[in-house]
């Protein structure tokens, strides 16, 4: 089954960077009320770059795998670089075909990231 490629299920079952940071610079919480997916993204910023990241929340395999893969990828990236990210960045990471219904699941972590790096989410 394409949607549940081995790598997706691996990230779902063993999410990287799942948990909290001791002293996050930016935190942003977002949810997808239609599915009940929820994510809290914490970023540690140093010299304009992502030094560390952590996320918590619950959701389907797609949204959780997307959060996990995104977290691995953004470490070391500058905020300016991340502001350039769009949905293709995430879909490339996932490497699967995501249909119109599940696209919201896949993009929830990106939505939280964009809000955080644009400085909207200085905590709740």
């Amino acid at each position, binding site marked *: 089954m394409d949607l549940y490629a081995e790598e997706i*299920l691996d990230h779902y079952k063993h999410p990287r960077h799942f948990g909290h940071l001791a002293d996050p610079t930016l935190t942003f919480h977002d949810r997808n009320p239609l599915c009940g997916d929820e994510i809290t993204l914490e970023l540690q910023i140093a010299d304009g770059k992502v030094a560390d990241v952590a996320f918590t929340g619950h959701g389907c395999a797609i949204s959780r795998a997307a959060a996990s893969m995104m977290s691995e990828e953004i470490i070391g990236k500058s905020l300016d670089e991340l502001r350039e990210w769009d949905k293709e960045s995430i879909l490339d990471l996932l490497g699967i075909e995501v249909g119109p219904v599940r696209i919201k699941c896949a993009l929830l972590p990106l939505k939280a990231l964009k809000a955080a790096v644009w400085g909207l989410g200085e905590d709740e």
Partner: protein
Amino acid sequence: MPTPTMTQSTSSQSTSLDVEAIRADFPILERRVHGLPLIYLDNAATSQKPRRVIDTLSGYYEHTNANVHRGVHTLSEEATAQYEGARAKVASFIGSCCPKEIIWTRNASEAMNLLAYSWGRANLKRGDRVLLTEMEHHSNIVPWQILSAELGFEIAYVRVADDGTLILDDLPKLLARTKLFSFTYMSNVVGTINPVKELTRAAHKAGALVHLDACQAVPHMPVDVQDLDVDFMSFSGHKMLGPTGIGALWGRRELLNAMPPWMGGGDMIREVHLTGFKPSELPWKFEAGTPAIAQAIGLGAAVDYLEQVGMAAIHQAEREITTYAMQRLPEVEGLRMLGPAADKRGGLVAFTLGDAHPHDIAAVLDNLGIAIRAGHHCAQPLHERYRLPATARASFYLYNTKAEVDLLVKGLHKVVEMFTF
């Protein structure tokens, strides 16, 4: 065209429906999904359509198509006769005294909005109460919330017990100051069939009118508005083998007569002048603009089909398949069903499965050709009450088989295999 047949023979189904003959009437059941035969278990969202309904729709467009109530030409007269004939069929199907008590709408949501904006705006004021239940579909909550913000009346809710039944201990207290008690006949999430007569008696005793959301009931069991003694009832066509785009509000004619029009336009007027208008009589008073003509006629064909099979037999068959599903589903590790025992519910089962998200459950099943619903099923308050963001739901209709339930269970074992940590 093949006709559904009643039989006393049982085979493996042990119901009075000849399910194989019924299945042959539904062309879509022949299609494959991801290379496997479609197993359609999302009937609470919408039902599939028998050949008779599909042929009625195309036949209407091929032979009859014209606007209704206007032309004096042959086509318009035929279209009007078929369109109004469908209204009479639907009226008789739900035990209404007369066709003019059936107001066509696009769907049940529109029926409830009609009730809120016409009856509600004319009858509700600050200090009044509208009583709902915690298990309502959003369409029986949001119109009242919108109107309450405008008129200042209060909304109260009958709460739901852990087993998915209504908590009725304090009903008389809740009914105080209540002008309208609006509740669902059958929950689209927990499946509970509510005691309509008991609730209606209590409401009437307290001086309140009753509106029944019968979306999940009219397609699945015999419903008689006069026997139930309710005042208004909403339902949709597409859940009862009919087309989308057609639904109805039924109301007692003296109540409908006293209600103001809600949408203005063509067909709903008796006369119009630059200085004002006089509304038409029932039912057209509430039906502005060219209606969903083909869809209404298609719904009439669906009613013919349902009556031929028999609503009591359909209800019985669904109860049997639901009982069977509720016996088999707990075999799946971590599966938790919501709602009451099979004898207190209609033909659906909502469940959670360990930590697997309902979207993942539904996506894995889809790959096996099995269609179920995942989400909050337009009943977010009920999910909040159970502290669940979403559930998975399998819902049955007259063409479903126990063999399909077996394949559902097999598919759920696969979900467990894939998503267990």
